[in-house]
């Protein structure tokens, strides 16, 4: 399984964020995106997810399911945690498990409960998500990725708001995912401590309009 980006270019708000970006992500070797603020790390992740269209180039997941788009085989952990404050932790998670897992069986509830325990939120299952702290919200988003299997993980600053114990947990989750043959692309400022990680440094902020 291999994720390949060829000659990718991206224009946001009339400004060329990056162009000519090439990368190959093989199973088991995570790709870390680094670069200054505004270098296009998040844009590249959203582009891989299919949320924005590339100005040039293409992204392909080789060895994936041909009937699905790259985005449909992907977990995207963005800056925002897609949670509803009025629903409980369990209801939020159960919704995403049901929504994302098209092949869900009757075990979805068990799976949701299991992944809540994995991220250490088991005791807060019946608390409305509106009362969670930023780190707990983050962990609830991680629980979604544990509960529903997806080939590719796109992580945008995954360690934001996480405490030391949770960062360790995240590290364990990422290693398990890589061990199972999964792919990871993560935008980060600090080292994530993953073995065999390759780095893609995105260019400096370029001012001015597109030619």
């Amino acid at each position, binding site marked *: 399984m291999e994720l390949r980006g060829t000659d990718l270019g991206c224009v946001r708000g009339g400004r060329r964020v990056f162009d000519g970006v090439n990368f190959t992500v093989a199973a088991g070797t995570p790709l870390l995106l680094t670069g200054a603020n505004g270098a296009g790390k998040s844009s590249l992740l*959203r582009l891989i*997810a*299919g*949320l*924005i*269209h590339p100005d040039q180039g293409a992204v392909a997941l080789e060895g994936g399911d041909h009937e*699905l788009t790259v*985005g*449909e085989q*992907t977990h*995207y952990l*963005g*800056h*925002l*945690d*897609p*949670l*509803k404050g*009025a*629903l409980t932790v369990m*209801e939020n998670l*159960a*919704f*995403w498990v*049901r*929504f*994302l*897992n*098209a*092949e*869900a069986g009757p075990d979805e509830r068990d799976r949701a409960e299991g992944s809540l325990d994995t991220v250490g939120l088991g005791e807060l299952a019946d608390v409305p998500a509106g009362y969670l702290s930023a780190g707990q919200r983050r962990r609830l988003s991680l629980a979604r990725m544990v509960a529903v299997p997806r080939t590719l993980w796109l992580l945008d600053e995954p360690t934001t708001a996480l405490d030391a114990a949770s960062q360790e947990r995240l590290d364990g989750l990422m290693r398990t995912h890589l061990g199972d043959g999964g792919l990871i692309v993560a935008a980060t400022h600090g080292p994530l401590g993953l073995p065999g990680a390759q780095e893609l440094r995105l260019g400096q902020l370029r001012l001015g309009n597109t030619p």
Partner: protein
Amino acid sequence: MSTLSALAAVFTRDARIAVRIGGGAMIGVLFFLTVVTLVPFAIGPDLALLRRIGPAILWLGALLASLLTLDRLFAGDHDDGSLDLVLMGRLPLELVVVAKALSHWVTTGLPLVIASPVLGLFLNLEPAALGATALTLLVGTPALTFIGIIGAALSVALRRGGLLMPVMVLPMTIPLLIFGVSATNAAVGGTVPFATPFTILCALTLVSAVIGPFAAAATLRHGME
């Protein structure tokens, strides 16, 4: 089967949020009540006049109540990033939009229909007009939702909330208003039979149920760029 289960999840999530936050059913009905109550004060104690324009007031009230609660339909999902996951997901976006629209109608449109006969009494409507108004609203409010979702999607795509949505959507609801009110008037004696405007109203609802989800989904896809 799993698609249905995922769509049911969307429906119940939206319904739960609407009921718990109280932004849905109750606020819509209260707004409806306020509009209808204000009119007699503005017009004065002319019972005959109220009876004549009653159905129109009920329809206008339902129209406004339905639209004002639509504003946040996609904006909430956009603000917390849910919309990203929905766009990436394996479900067709059009079906997700239909599920959200149905959820909105059940939590805000249906309570308006149920409340309308009671509010009709305030306006001195006769029993036949009460029934006819409720029936036309039952058929017509889904169309309000399906037209309104286009505006709700546009307000997300253009990143402009507030009044933009009603300004864009209200003109599109004029046909509904015309045939809804004329059907009600026909029921209490008029030159045309009740069925004539009523079937046109039904047709408008069916057309909007087809066009609305596709237009809203297309708007959302382009707006996320």
